[in-house]
Every structure is written in C-alpha cells, then in structure tokens.
C-alpha cells in the first residue's frame, strides 16, 4: 500500500503502477479535482493544510479496513497540500481487484472514509473572501 501527502503535483501513473498486480483485472482510480464553484460561490483557488504524519497513519487504517471489507487486492492514496488552482488534482485513490464491482465499491467507500477521517483541511479562496471548509458547515463535496 502507498500513502503520500505531498506538496508536489500528484502522479496517477505512480499510484496505478503501485496497485497493478497480475491477478487484478480491474483498477478504479478516483481524482478529486479543484472545482470552480462551491455552494454558489466562484472559487479562485484552494489551500490545503495537513497533519502529514497522522494523515498517512489514518490512510493506512482506513485502507486496511476497506481492503478487508471488500476483498480487494491493493490500494494507493496521494493527497496534495499547499495552494491548488482550479482543475488541479488534490486527491488520488486507486484500488485494484480481480473484478470490477469490488474495485468500484471499495474505491468509493475509501474516498468517503478519507473525507471523514483524514486530518487534511481546505481553505476556499473565493470571490470576496476566504473560509476554512469544515465538516458541519459544508455539504458532502467531491
């Protein structure tokens, strides 16, 4: 398994290479991308803060849970920190599996768990202001 929190551009080839196995016929890869709008506001850019040591530890825990629950083969996750422009990738979650259904379901569940539990925060810089996006105040978000 691969878990990275990094200020560099994310690397989809790297995460997919990491999860590829000869017995896995399916890979589901999720990209979280910085969107130009949120809750009716025009977003200019995002800034991500993280607690990296704990983030990778929690990523490991939730990945182990998901791997066990869905019986998938391999998992890799990268999250970026710092300033991200519209269209840049903030999150990559890759899951490989013998068959496609488990790959899709496990990848989806893992992204959901990630957004609940991993200590990474985003500040939205929008037209006219900025705000840390915190769970209770914001709708579930891609």
């Amino acid at each position: 398994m691969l878990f990275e929190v990094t200020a560099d551009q994310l690397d989809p080839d790297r995460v997919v290479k990491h999860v590829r196995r000869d017995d896995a016929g399916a890979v589901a890869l999720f990209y979280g991308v910085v969107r130009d709008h949120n809750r009716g506001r025009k977003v200019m850019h995002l800034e991500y803060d993280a607690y990296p040591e704990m983030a990778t530890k929690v990523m490991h825990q939730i990945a182990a849970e998901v791997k066990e629950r869905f019986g998938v083969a391999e998992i890799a996750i990268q999250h970026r920190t710092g300033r991200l422009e519209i269209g840049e990738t903030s999150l990559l979650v890759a899951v490989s599996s013998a068959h496609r259904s488990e790959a899709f379901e496990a990848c989806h569940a893992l992204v959901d768990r990630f957004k609940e539990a991993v200590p990474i925060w985003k500040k939205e810089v929008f037209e006219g202001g900025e705000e840390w996006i915190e769970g209770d105040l914001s709708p579930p978000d891609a």
Partner: protein
Amino acid sequence: MGTARVRLFARLADLAGTREAAVELGEGLTAAGVFGVLVQRYPSLTGFDAFVRFAVNSEYVPASHPVRDGDEVALIPPVSGGSRAL
C-alpha cells in the same frame, strides 16, 4: 511532570497565529486540559473546544485522555467531508 508539544492546523492555527506550542503538564492533565491551557495563552481559541477532536501521538483520543511527558497533542478541526461521519 514534563511537557507536551501541541500542533495546530487550519483555522485554529490561523486563530492562534502559530502551528505549534509547548505546554507544561500539570498533574493528571487531559487533552481537554491542554486545550484549556492554550485558550489562556491564545484567547481567540475560546469556545472551540466543542469543535475540535483531539489526537495524541497521531491517534484520535477522547477529550479525557491523559497526556504524558513527550506526547504530541494535535487539535483536529472538522475535516472537509466530516459531516457524513456525524
């Protein structure tokens, strides 16, 4: 009684104006108690104890968790997708 290192992130770091602090540990100090010490030092954190989760040495812990010499205490604001967890 020792010292704990406290880490602050996101809105709490902005409010306190720092990402890190050292707290002297009194007898039986808990994670919530450490936060209380910080509120005295950084009054802008007042009221946020209902809002944060605590981690000690990178593991989520209850507010009542005792803090020991050398521990790293982190104040964890809600993460962006956290509304689904509640």
